[in-house]
């Protein structure tokens, strides 16, 4: 493992991962109250990718994301309060309670609105990259998507055009092996998704997406390449979705996944692995981690209270913003 990151940078990475994990665990515990009336697609088990990639992005850089977007938005710096309020469908939500979990948006953090259309946001990221170049900005545009999106035509159209124009785009595939419940082996020939980059003259690399330091390193190179005019990169991070495709529960008993896989991946928990590293190799003390934990929990407490107390949107808002 690399060891060139400052202790502060390591702690920040940890705090982002922990925030994502704890926020989603809170969603799991609150969901049965039936106050969050929107589908939620949780990324528990995949936190290292959002944290490791977004660590290299500034507020002005762009991210485009999917129905499984909580992690990306949190890692990009979005406040938890408008996210929580949005999940509750309230008027202080980031989309004024009209988008819910799948359509988080935050212009102040370069998030124009996530979407549930698989692969749909990838060409938008290409367009944002093109806009960055044409306007002389050094902004990088990141498209997050799952392995399912690599089935879609927009994925291929986007790689092709981004490469042709050498655009500052980083394609980040979170390969969790499942599109809803269909395994990748039933949908794609058995080659790493990163290798598809070669067909478009885009450097591609497959990296352990549960090891945040490896994610961080791969993303650093890709973001630097994009920012310095070197064109796009296709990053494939292998990971595993702990929860069902949608909803707060597990789908392990439904028989869609091979026996034992879930247990194996639980042992590769990105948070636990990183926590061990911090304690054993980075001179971060248990007390320091505990302080981060307390702060994260407090922020989530406040966000939930904020969300629950926010009013529902007024009926008069229905036809606004069309």
């Amino acid at each position, binding site marked *: 493992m690399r060891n060139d990151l400052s202790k502060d940078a390591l702690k920040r990475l940890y705090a982002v991962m922990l925030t994502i994990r704890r926020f989603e665990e809170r969603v799991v515990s609150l969901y049965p109250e039936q106050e969050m009336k929107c589908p939620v697609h949780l990324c528990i088990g995949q936190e290292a990718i959002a944290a490791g990639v977004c660590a290299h992005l500034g507020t002005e850089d762009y991210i485009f994301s999917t129905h499984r977007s909580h992690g990306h938005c949190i890692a990009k710096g979005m406040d938890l309060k408008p996210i929580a309020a949005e999940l509750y469908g309230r008027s202080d939500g980031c989309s004024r309670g009209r988008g819910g979990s799948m359509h988080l948006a935050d212009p102040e953090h370069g998030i*124009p609105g996530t979407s549930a259309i698989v692969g749909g946001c990838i*060409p938008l990221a*290409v*367009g944002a990259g093109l806009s960055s170049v044409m306007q002389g900005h050094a902004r990088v545009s990141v498209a997050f998507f799952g392995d399912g999106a690599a089935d879609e035509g927009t994925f291929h*159209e*986007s790689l092709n055009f981004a490469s042709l124009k050498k655009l500052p785009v980083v394609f980040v595939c979170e390969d969790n092996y499942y599109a809803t419940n269909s395994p990748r082996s039933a949908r794609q020939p058995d080659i790493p998704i990163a290798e598809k980059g070669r067909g478009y003259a885009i450097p591609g690399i497959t990296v352990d997406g549960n090891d945040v330091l490896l994610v961080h390193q791969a993303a650093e190179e890709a973001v630097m390449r994009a920012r310095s005019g070197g064109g796009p990169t296709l990053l494939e991070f292998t990971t595993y979705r702990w929860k069902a495709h949608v909803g707060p529960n597990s789908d392990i008993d439904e028989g869609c996944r091979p026996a034992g896989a879930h247990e194996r991946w639980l042992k590769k928990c990105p948070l636990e692995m990183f926590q061990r590293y911090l304690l054993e190799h980075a001179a971060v003390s248990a007390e320091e981690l505990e302080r981060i934990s307390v702060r994260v929990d407090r922020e989530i407490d406040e966000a939930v209270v904020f969300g629950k107390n926010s009013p529902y949107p007024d009926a008069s808002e229905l036809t606004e913003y*069309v």
Partner: protein
Amino acid sequence: MATMNMVHAINLALKEEMQRDKDVVILGEDVGRDGGVFRVTEGLLEQFGEARVMDTPLAESGIVGTAIGMAVYGLKPVAEIQFMGFIYPAADQIFNHAARIRSRSRGRYSVPMVIRTPYGVGIRSPEHHSESSEAHFCHMPGIKVVVPSSPYYAKGLLISAIRDPDPVIFLESTRLYRMIKEDVPEGEYTVPLGKARIVQEGGQVTVISWGSMLQKTIKAIEGVDAEVIDLMTLNPFDEEAIFNSVKKTGRAVVVYEAPKTGGFGAEISASIAEDAMLYLKGPIKRVTGYDAVLPLPKLEDYYMPSTERIRKAIDEVMQY
């Protein structure tokens, strides 16, 4: 003032807007070196360079998706889709993203993008090359749909569309591209979106049309005291202009070349029935294409509303 056809008028609108605003960018298949299938963008590459007049891969969804991303972040892309039948691969991007980003971001982002596409019968080519599927796009909240009927209005409407903060589908009748010439002023003028125009005033029947069908409609009403409305923008459409006219005439005929079922004439007819029914002296009639996939030339002639069919409908309504 120069006399020109619709191709030249649209080209002039693009040129002037690109001169005025460096953020206006053109992209699409063959729009650069070739100047587009119908040569609408001819000469713009030479004047504005490859960065602003961009030949793209043959990938409609990618073209429109890229344009959305550009529009969200500061540019004003004008994308061309070669024929309206080719727009369907991009429908996902139009419906699922372009139309919704304003709503998703509660008005903090908009998509100032124009998608120009030739539509309708006009070049003797079946199916995808002759479709008139404006109603699909009118049904999606968040999308504006504009259909000019002459060179003068094409230029003024396109300038408004480019300056509009929201996505506009701009439909150019292939039949009209080189059919009519009229005076088109150089320099800036705009025709507002969402407003219809009264082409001819009259008192006995209101005939509503747009785009390619307007010329035939004007021919068909010879000798009739008819008020002709050119709708120009289909979404949002100018209900007030229609109601005011129907309240005066008590009769309405809608003329368009798309298939009848679920066409935009249905929306207009229903709106009249809802809000001006008590003024009606007879049924509302639609003169349209048929519910058929656009066929080859001989059958195409049968498909298209003719002046005779339009006149027959007007006579029926008048004699009701």
